């Protein structure tokens, strides 16, 4: 029986497509979400201050299968004085503010944890210096299976 080459070819195509994704994402540099999702929580935490791009690095897989536990490392870069707080934001989670880490010397501004992502989104990190300066970065993370998948949960995904 001839199933033909199509299935294999489709599979190969899919593998290539997935493999190509992270590169495309890097090229497309996510940028801190400026409008919409994060505005209310930025208002709440930072008033009218908004983060400038840079000064913070996020290490996270750009494609994750399971949004229930995603390894993330956030660190401040640069030689200047260290920030006092590092924040993680998940703009499309039911609650976009995920964590705040307050660091006092001699602790270093680098933290690793595991987060939940309800859907594909631009994971965002923001560092806050004692003088009020905010800097941040965002990485687009493609989530195959979101956290808390549940028929009733659909309403909560923004």
């Amino acid at each position, binding site marked *: 029986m001839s199933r033909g080459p199509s299935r294999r070819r489709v599979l190969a195509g899919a593998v290539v497509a997935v493999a190509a994704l992270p590169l495309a994402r890097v090229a497309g540099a996510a940028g801190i979400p400026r409008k919409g999702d994060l505005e209310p929580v930025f208002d709440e935490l930072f008033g009218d201050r908004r983060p400038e791009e840079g000064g913070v690095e996020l290490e996270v897989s750009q494609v994750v299968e399971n949004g229930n536990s995603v390894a993330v490392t956030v660190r401040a870069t640069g030689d200047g004085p260290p920030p006092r707080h590092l924040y993680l934001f998940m703009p499309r*989670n039911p609650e976009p503010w995920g*964590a705040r*880490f*307050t660091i006092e010397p*001699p602790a270093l501004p*680098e933290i690793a944890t*595991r*987060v*939940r992502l309800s859907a594909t989104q631009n994971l965002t990190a923001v560092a806050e210096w004692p003088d009020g300066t905010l800097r941040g970065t965002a990485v687009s993370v493609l989530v195959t299976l979101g956290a808390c998948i*549940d028929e009733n949960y659909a309403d909560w995904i923004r």
Partner: protein
Amino acid sequence: MSELSARVRIPERARRGEVVEIRTLASHPMETGFRLDTDGHRVPRNLIDRVTCRYAGRTVFDATLRPAIAANPYLSFRFVADVSGEVELTWHEDTGATLTERGHLEVEDP
């Protein structure tokens, strides 16, 4: 309330100026409050919402955790070993329960 338990790796000795890493893993569901049980009732929120670390009497790390932190919260952070002293980690649950684990870090001159 969940039974609080946690594992933590605190180095026992370091050279002065060396960067040491603290790694912790707590056992906790980090219930978000968004999930429904099989009867359609909302499962109440139950989080470890704060984890702090004191080193030689100073608070060096203070984390506020929210529902987006995965179940069994894992945290790792680093500090410069500048003085011998106690390293004390405390997990705070939103029920008011706390758990503290301690270790002693001996700092030696190179």
